[in-house]
């Protein structure tokens, strides 16, 4: 079955407790289970135990069969397998799923239920994903926000609640979306400079209701970009979730924004202003329990899929709101206002918390959300869902803080090799700690090596500098923007070897356009100026160049992660 197929791919990731993405997958997994099989009350303790065991391993085959148990398993694992902190991540989502299931059952619309349940899980996922993606989107696709973004969504707003979107079409759309997003995601993820801006962006973006949909979608897409198939399949869920997610977010954000925009805005004033401005525009939109506006865009992208999901999950009130919003949007005129009315009701009920029934029922989380170990997505939803507290500001701030942390953890995930498969704060921190320790040890080792290699390091430094620099340029980075700087800097460092420098400069100039492969060829003319390196330069060919690279790798401490193309050192010795 299609769902099972998607779910299998999801289950690959769902094995770990899951910080952001893992969580998400888990939710999807459970969702799918629920979808596939009629939801049963979670009263099967034995099944739970079994499910718990399954959770720890990636039982793709097991999962589909354990649909009813999946939910329980996550709970069971949380309770039974104490050592797995990661299970905790799933637990809140599980409870949420359970709740959602109940609601759906009550509602009685099977299709809606299926999708609604799906929405419950991914919502949390969405939130955490949305943040970084928001930034990426903001940074890279302002136009996207403005225009294409989903004005069509309103028109398309699916009226057919009962109509389950052809999942294939849905998936196609999601896939398209994912591919669309992939590039942006990479842009967003890589540069470190982004974190600061990201922070600001998230704050600003967080307050912006309208674009959230896009972000949700983009988030979904970027996720797809990250992990091809799985993501694509997840995208279907994500898109569905996006609707609900956006709803939740907008509802949550709008009251937040309206009531206490100040504290969150403080750190990023500029962006906050933009955010407020943007959110002001969209506050109306957003206020309709986040549903309409949010749903429009994702629904436009997701087509019918998004809508049913939103509807499925929503309580009666939400449905009403959605329908209203949809109708309004279809008209193109009044939706925000009418929706706002609905949302106003909701808002009146409970400040920050989603006033939808779902939210109330999902207050299972208990704690406001100061559980640092919980994934931000989860927290996001649960906090929103939670009943209004006197410490609203605190919970909001905590949520924002958690989202920030999750964004940065995502960045770290890309930076630290081997971290993308790991999900869960504790595990990722483990990886990061190991990586930092290994890097520090490498530095020590290399400094010791430099100390032993040549007592006359100073001379070598001077003598080798141009060659060394060239080599470095060629090796780690193929950019030769270095050369002008190089030529400027080096004359001061080589007072004793003006000829060398001058010899180096023309070579540098020639090298301006040279890429790494050709750099080595320039070594020979340059080497003429060197005393010692003549023999070395004669031997410098492309092959040797590569060999030296490998040699570096071989000589580095045994950190497999660090060694690029680590060939055994015998290789180089033979060549030499």
């Amino acid at each position, binding site marked *: 079955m299609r769902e099972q197929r998607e779910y299998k791919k999801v289950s690959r990731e769902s094995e770990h407790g899951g910080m952001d993405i893992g969580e998400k997958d888990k939710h999807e997994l459970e969702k799918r289970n629920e979808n596939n099989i009629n939801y049963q009350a979670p009263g099967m303790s034995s099944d739970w135990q079994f499910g718990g065991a399954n959770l720890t391993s990636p039982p793709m085959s097991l999962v589909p069969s354990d649909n009813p148990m999946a939910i329980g398993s996550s709970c069971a694992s949380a309770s039974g397998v104490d050592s797995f902190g*990661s299970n*905790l*991540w799933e637990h809140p989502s599980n409870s949420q799923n359970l709740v959602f299931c109940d609601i759906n059952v009550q509602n009685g619309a099977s299709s809606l239920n299926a999708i609604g349940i799906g929405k419950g899980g991914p919502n949390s996922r969405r939130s955490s994903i949305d943040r970084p993606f928001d930034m990426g989107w903001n940074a890279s696709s302002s136009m996207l926000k403005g225009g294409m973004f989903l004005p069509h969504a309103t028109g398309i707003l699916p009226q057919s609640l009962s109509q389950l979107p052809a999942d294939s079409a849905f998936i196609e759309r999601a896939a398209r979306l994912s591919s669309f997003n992939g590039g942006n995601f990479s842009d967003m993820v890589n540069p*470190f400079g982004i974190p600061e801006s990201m922070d600001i962006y998230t704050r600003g973006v967080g307050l912006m209701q309208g674009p959230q949909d896009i972000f949700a979608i983009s988030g979904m897409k970027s996720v797809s970009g990250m992990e091809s198939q799985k993501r694509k399949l997840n995208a279907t869920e994500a898109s569905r979730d996006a609707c609900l997610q956006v709803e939740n977010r907008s509802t949550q954000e709008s009251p937040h924004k309206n009531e206490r925009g100040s504290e969150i805005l403080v750190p990023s004033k500029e962006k906050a202003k933009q955010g407020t401005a943007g959110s002001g525009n969209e506050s109306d939109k957003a206020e309709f329990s986040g549903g309409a506006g949010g749903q429009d865009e994702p629904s436009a992208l997701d087509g019918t899929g998004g809508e049913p999901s939103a509807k499925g999950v929503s309580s009666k009130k939400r449905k009403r709101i959605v329908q209203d919003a949809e109708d309004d949007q279809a008209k193109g005129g009044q939706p925000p206002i009418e929706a706002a009315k609905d949302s106003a009701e909701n808002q009146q009920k409970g400040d920050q918390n989603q006033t939808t029934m779902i939210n109330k029922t999902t207050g299972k989380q208990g704690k406001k959300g100061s559980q640092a170990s919980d994934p931000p997505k989860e927290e996001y939803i649960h906090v929103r869902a939670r009943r209004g507290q006197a410490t609203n500001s605190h919970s909001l701030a905590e949520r924002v803080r958690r989202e920030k942390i999750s964004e940065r953890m995502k960045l770290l995930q890309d930076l630290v090799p081997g971290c993308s498969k790991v999900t869960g704060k504790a595990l990722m921190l483990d990886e990061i700690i190991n990586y930092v320790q290994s890097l520090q040890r490498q530095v020590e080792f290399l400094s010791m090596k430099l*100390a032993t290699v040549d007592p006359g390091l100073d001379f070598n*430094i001077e003598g080798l500098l141009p060659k060394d620099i060239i080599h*470095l340029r060629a090796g*780690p980075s193929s950019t030769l923007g270095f050369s002008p700087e190089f030529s400027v800097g080096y004359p001061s*460092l080589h007072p004793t070897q003006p000829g060398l420098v001058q010899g180096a400069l023309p070579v540098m100039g020639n090298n301006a356009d040279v890429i790494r492969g050709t750099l080595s060829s320039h070594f020979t003319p340059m080497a003429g100026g060197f005393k010692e390196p003549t023999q070395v330069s004669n031997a410098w060919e492309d092959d040797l160049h590569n060999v030296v690279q490998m040699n570096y790798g071989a000589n580095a401490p045994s950190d497999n992660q660090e060694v690029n193309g680590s060939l055994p050192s015998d290789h180089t010795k033979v060549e030499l």
Partner: protein
Amino acid sequence: MRPPSSLKQEFLKKWITGLQRCSSSKRNMSILERTKAIKLSADVAMASARNSTTCWSRALIANASKDGSDGKHLVEQILGLESERLMMKKASTGALVCNKRIRSKKILKRSCRIPRTRKCVPQVALATSIAKRMVRKRTQVLKSLIPGGEFMNEVSLIEETLDYIISLRVQVDVMRGLAGVSELVNHN
């Protein structure tokens, strides 16, 4: 973030300068001392390449400057006296900010702890607390690794970690290149 290649260039230049500065006294040093000098100059060069925009760089330089005379000497030489003063100033303000953050965090925690009305399923609570403990333990370890990390809150800790990892990578690449080249030269 500036591209790693420019960072490498900067780091290399500063490091070379530092090495040359300490090379004058290096003649009679033991290997260990030389190692330390090399590492120190590399670290200081790496930190100064950040121009005290990050907390870890300031903390690193502060640590280097206060440990011993040779460290301080080296740092002064590399950075120049004024920049060092600047760093010290920034370091102090950074510490203040960090303390403020810590204090506000404590207040936040205290206030959050009060209205705790969670329906605690005991297993849930247990699992949650275990996870929290795990994360806290690792955060402590990470704080001990990053220079100046004890003063940061979680968010900035992760940011600093990001920056620190990048700088370490650059450092390792450059050092590796230099080591390889010197080795080749020595072989020949």
